[in-house]
Structure formats: C-alpha cells, structure tokens
C-alpha cells in the first residue's frame, strides 16, 4: 500500500534555506509530479502553527504520505513523525529531505544551482514516500530486573540507582571483592576523596537495599533472548569448603556492562621499567597512599628530592594502544600537587607530549605550574630515554625539550614515574563473546554514537558504562554508568519497549534457499526454514536482527531487503535525483 496522495512542504527555515534556494520555484517544479496532491512553502515547518496547519491539510486532503524538505533529519525527523501520527498517518510514510545542511548551507554562492539541487532532492524524497510502506514499531514486554556486570565504582552506583528505582538488580563481580580500581585508592582526584571509604559506603547502601543481590567471584557465561527478556547464566566460583562452582540462571530485562579497564603495565625495559626507582603511575599512587602521614617522599627508605614524570607511557602509540586514556595527566598532576604539599623542596619535572587536564581539571595544572612543577614537552619522534644508574649511580632521563629548540636535557632523578593509562581487561573477552558486543579499534566496547547515543550498544537492551567503553576517571565512570542505568531504567519501568521496525525481510517468492544470507548475518538472526512445500527459505528473527543490512548485497535474487530501505525504493530515489 504505497502512498498515492502525497503532500510536499518546503521550509524557508526563516531565511536559512530561502536566502539561498528559491523555495517557491522548488514548489512550482514538483507540483506536476505524479502523486503529489499538494505542495506548499512553510516559514518554519517545526513551529506549532505550521504543524497544526499541516495536520489540517493532511486530514482535509486525505493525504497518505508526506515529504518535508527542511533541515537535517537529525534535528526534526521525530518531530515530524509524531506530527504525522497525530494527523492519523503512519509515521514511516513521512520522508524528511535535508535541503539545509546538504543544500542551502553548502551552496551559498549559486542560487540557481542550489534551487535545482533542492528540486532533485525533493523529487527523491517524493519517491521515497511513494515507495514507503506503513511500518509499526516492534513492541516488546520487559521484565523489571537488570543484570549489572562488574562491581567497580560505576557498577555499584548503577546498581544502587536501579535498585532505588524499584528494579531487581543482580550485580556480578569477577573478583573476590567489589570496588575495582577505586577500591584501594586513598586519594581520588580532583577532590582527594578516599576511594576505600567511598566504596565501603556504597556497599553499605547495597546491603540495605533488599532488591540488589551481589555475587562475587562470579562471571557471565551464557545469554539468550533479547531486549526485555534475556535469560542469562552466571557461574559463581566455589568458596572455601565447596568443591563445585554454582551456575545460576537469571531472567532479566536489560544488561549493564560496567566491567571496567585495567592499568597498562609497561614492558620490561620500557623506559627502564623493572629497574629500581622506575615506577608506574599506579605504583607511585600506592607509594603516596601508603605514606600519607609522612612529611617527605621516601622510596625504599631514601628521601626523594627529584621526581621525573614521563607521560603517555603506553598511550597514543603508533600501533597497539593508539588512544589517549584521558585521566592519566590529571591523576599524575594531582599526585605531583600532593608531593608539592608534603615536601616543597622536591623538584618535579613533567615530560609530556600534550597535557589533557580538561574542564575544571585545568585548575590542577595551573596549581602545579604555580607550585613550581616544570613541564617539558617532547616530540613523539624523540621520546625520552631513561638511563638507569650503574654501580649505585642515580637515574638519568634524557629528553629533547621542544621549548629550547630541541636541546637535549639530562635530568638526574631519584624517582621516575611512568604515567600509564588504562587498557581493556583480558577478562572482557568472555563478556564480549557471551553478549556479542562489538568493540572498537581500541578494544573497548563500542557505543552507538559517542555523543548522541553514548551508553547504548547495537545489541538492544545491553548498555555500557564506565571504563568498559573507554578510559575514564572515577567521576566520569560514575556519570556514564548512571547514564546507562537511567537508559535501562527508562525501558524497564515502562514495562514495554518499542523497537525501530527497520529489520530484514525475506521475499519468499524470490528466495531460492541458497543460504548465503545465513552466513553473512553477524548476529545469527537468519536461519534456514522451510516453506509449506518443504523447499528451503530464509527466515529472519526480527528480535535479533539489527537492521544493518549485511545480508542485502549477498542475496543473488534480491530477496532480502531492510524495511524502509527496499531495492525499489532506493532505485526510484536514484531516478528522482536524476530527473531535471
């Protein structure tokens, strides 16, 4: 049932479009197009009054499909889908044509050219609407329970948030006690809060919430089902006196992955690592934590008077860990401030590539400068060299200082701190295998979009938070984990969820049962079934299908298409774009 009575609305967007595109001319040129019942110009299509007017027209003219040529669909696709729905139309028979970001704003110097291009784009939009089928979101009932994998500071906070929403929470921790990286830290930047007591107070809160179950020494081993109704198996390692591991079956509506990350450990000999006096950031923080009441800084009983920090160790490499871990600059600088405070006579040299103390953390950097820390920038082409003392001599760090036109400096140091970042945990692989979560080039779990959909994954109902999706500081871990908790909570509390209907569809008349699509599908969403006459035919499990379309190009018969992106629709859009 394709649209036959189409309404076309071309937006002026104030002047954002009409200053560069002759919108009246666009409307004139598409008036005769087959199926176009009405064509109008709007001043601001998104305004309430324009929407009411369009709803009136849709009803009065009995339109069964509409096209709005305005801004990017990123801005108002949902606005107008909802408007279509209010007018009694199927929202998927609405097409938004982007004549602002992709026309008026890109071709500001050629009014005639831009007008012709806008017309072509609108023609393609008309074709899209003409070939659109009414679609209905896939509705799924959800269970009010969540599995949270990983009980670091992010997982704990997310579990509490979900528990306080009244949801049943199963909190899994691989180690024998919760807390993760924060659990053993005495001073967290930038506030200096005590991580140990922070975790303790979160655990107390968890114990008071009846609907949260905490499993330690536990891992996720199996997952079946889909959003709203997952069935998962967890394995709990045997405790003292037990000889067999427990396997527990749970049914949950959503899964949060807060498995965290682990500090990078330099290779033996990397910047002299392994030798006396050369420590990682984590080891240095441990050293500061274990001597909080001391007035000076001591390493192996000797007073430290000169500390050299080397930043980006194991980070931003040409190969391997190519990314920046974000938190390490601030953490190292925060530690250096503690040194300045405890022992002002210690001279501190910071050898860095770039300093990333973003937002209010810049204040830490400013304070370090103010207190006398010296920052020395080096080029990645000539990283510092560490020469370990022989026969009891000190450590020498050699670096080419970019600010003194690459003069080589030799810095004698009592202690060298390798400022190391975070890398994905090895144990993450199990979770990845069980949940079939995509990981990015860095090896961390991938969100759908870092800005627009930052905690969702392509596996509907599975959310990621904290360092599992990339290095973060404690505060950011908590923020993103709470974001994931809010997202999970929002579907579970509602009791049902609507999924976009853009999934693969088989035209049984065309399918010859070759099975190439079964192999092509990365999500095991296509299986080979049988027609009533016993012949093989591809069958799509719409709950597993992500709608990316990997199966489409492999089908020799064009029997597969993604709803909303059918072969004929695309071809007629191509024709529309070519019609002058």
């Amino acid at each position: 049932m394709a649209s036959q009575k189409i309404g076309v609305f071309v937006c002026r967007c104030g002047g954002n479009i009409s200053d560069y595109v002759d919108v009246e001319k666009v409307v004139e040129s598409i008036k005769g197009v087959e199926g176009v019942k009405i064509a109008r110009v709007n001043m601001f299509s998104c305004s309430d009054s324009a929407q009411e007017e369009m709803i009136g027209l849709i009803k009065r003219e009995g339109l069964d499909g509409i096209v709005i040529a305005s801004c990017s669909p990123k801005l108002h696709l949902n606005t107008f889908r909802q408007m279509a729905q209010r007018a009694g139309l199927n929202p998927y028979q609405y097409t938004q044509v982007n004549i602002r970001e992709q026309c008026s704003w890109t071709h500001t110097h050629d009014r005639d050219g831009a007008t012709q291009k806008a017309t072509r784009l609108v023609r393609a939009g008309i074709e899209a609407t003409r070939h659109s089928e009414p679609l209905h979101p896939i509705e799924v009932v959800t269970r009010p329970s969540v599995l949270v994998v990983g009980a670091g500071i992010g997982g704990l906070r997310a579990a509490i948030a979900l528990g306080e929403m009244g949801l049943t929470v199963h909190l899994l921790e691989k180690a024998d006690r919760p807390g993760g990286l924060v659990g053993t830290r005495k001073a967290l930047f930038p506030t200096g809060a005590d991580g140990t007591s922070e975790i303790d107070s979160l655990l107390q809160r968890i114990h008071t919430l009846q609907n949260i179950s905490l499993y330690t020494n536990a891992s996720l081993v199996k997952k079946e089902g889909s959003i709203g109704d997952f069935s998962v198996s967890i394995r709990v390692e045997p405790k003292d006196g037990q000889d067999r591991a427990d396997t527990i079956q749970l049914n949950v509506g959503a899964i949060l992955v807060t498995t965290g990350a682990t500090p990078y450990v330099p290779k033996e000999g990397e910047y002299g690592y392994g030798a006396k006096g050369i420590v990682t950031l984590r080891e240095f923080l441990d050293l500061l934590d274990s001597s909080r009441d001391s007035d000076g800084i001591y390493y192996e009983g000797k007073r430290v008077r000169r500390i050299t920090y080397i930043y980006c160790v194991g980070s931003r490499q040409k190969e391997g860990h190519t990314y920046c871990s974000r938190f390490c600059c601030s953490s190292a600088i925060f530690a250096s401030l503690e040194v300045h405070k405890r022992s002002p006579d210690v001279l501190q040299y910071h050898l860095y590539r770039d300093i990333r103390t973003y937002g209010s953390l810049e204040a830490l950097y400013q304070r370090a400068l103010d207190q006398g820390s010296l920052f020395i920038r080096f080029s990645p082409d000539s990283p510092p060299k560490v020469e370990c003392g022989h026969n009891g001599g000190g450590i020498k760090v050699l670096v080419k200082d970019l600010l003194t036109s690459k003069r080589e400096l030799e810095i004698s140091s009592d202690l060298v701190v390798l400022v190391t970042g975070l890398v994905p945990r090895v144990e993450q692989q199990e979770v990845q295998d069980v949940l079939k979560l995509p990981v990015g080039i860095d090896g961390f779990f991938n969100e759908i979009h870092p800005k627009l959909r930052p905690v969702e994954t392509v596996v509907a109902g599975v959310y990621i938070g904290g360092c599992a999706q990339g290095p973060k500081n404690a505060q950011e871990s908590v923020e993103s984990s709470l974001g994931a908790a809010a997202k999970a909570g929002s579907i579970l509390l509602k009791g049902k969820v609507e999924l976009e209907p853009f999934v693969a569809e088989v035209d049984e008349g065309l399918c010859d049962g070759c099975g190439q699509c079964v192999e092509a599908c990365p999500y095991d969403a296509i299986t080979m079934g049988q027609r009533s006459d016993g012949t093989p035919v591809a069958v799509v499990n719409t709950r597993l299908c992500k709608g990316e379309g990997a199966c489409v190009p492999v089908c020799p018969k064009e029997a597969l298409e993604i709803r909303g992106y059918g072969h004929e629709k695309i071809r007629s859009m191509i024709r529309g774009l070519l019609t002058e």
Partner: protein
Amino acid sequence: MIKVNDSVVRELRSRGRFDASKCFSCGTCTALCPVGLPILPREIFRYALLGAQEELIKRQDEIFSCLLCRMCEENCPEGVGISGNIRLIRGLLNEKVLGL
C-alpha cells in the same frame, strides 16, 4: 646538552618568589617587549628553571637589558611575576659572575 642543575632553581627560590614555572611559553611577553629582545623573558626563564647557568651567563646582556617596565607582566595570561624573576636572576648572576 644541558645538564639540568636543580641547585639554580633552589637558589633562586631562596632569594625570593621565583615563579617562572607558571610560564607556559605563549610568547606574549616577547611580542610586547619595548626593547624588542626576542629572548626576553620566556627563554631566559626556561634556562633558569633548567638550571642552565652557562646559558644565563651567555645572555647576561639581555637579562640586564630588561626595563622592568612590566608591560609583559601586565599582559601575562599566567600572571607570572616577570620583573621580579628577572631581578632574582640578575642577583644570581651578580653573585656568581661578579661576586657582588
């Protein structure tokens, strides 16, 4: 090669408020210097912070050419006490080189 000599910074700090480490080398001072000496004052501070006494001695003329007019200091985005720092370096040089 410069052997970083921490005794120079320690000595400067013992003489007064030597806050050149705040400098992030933006070059505003150099651009505004009425004497127009390209080396003033950020590069000098760098050498002082690195303890490169020989480099300071080589640049004594520049160090003593500073007007202490504070045009740079007024506009320094980091609020470095430039004129005070120059004075402290002069003091160090007078003592080390001239014995004054």
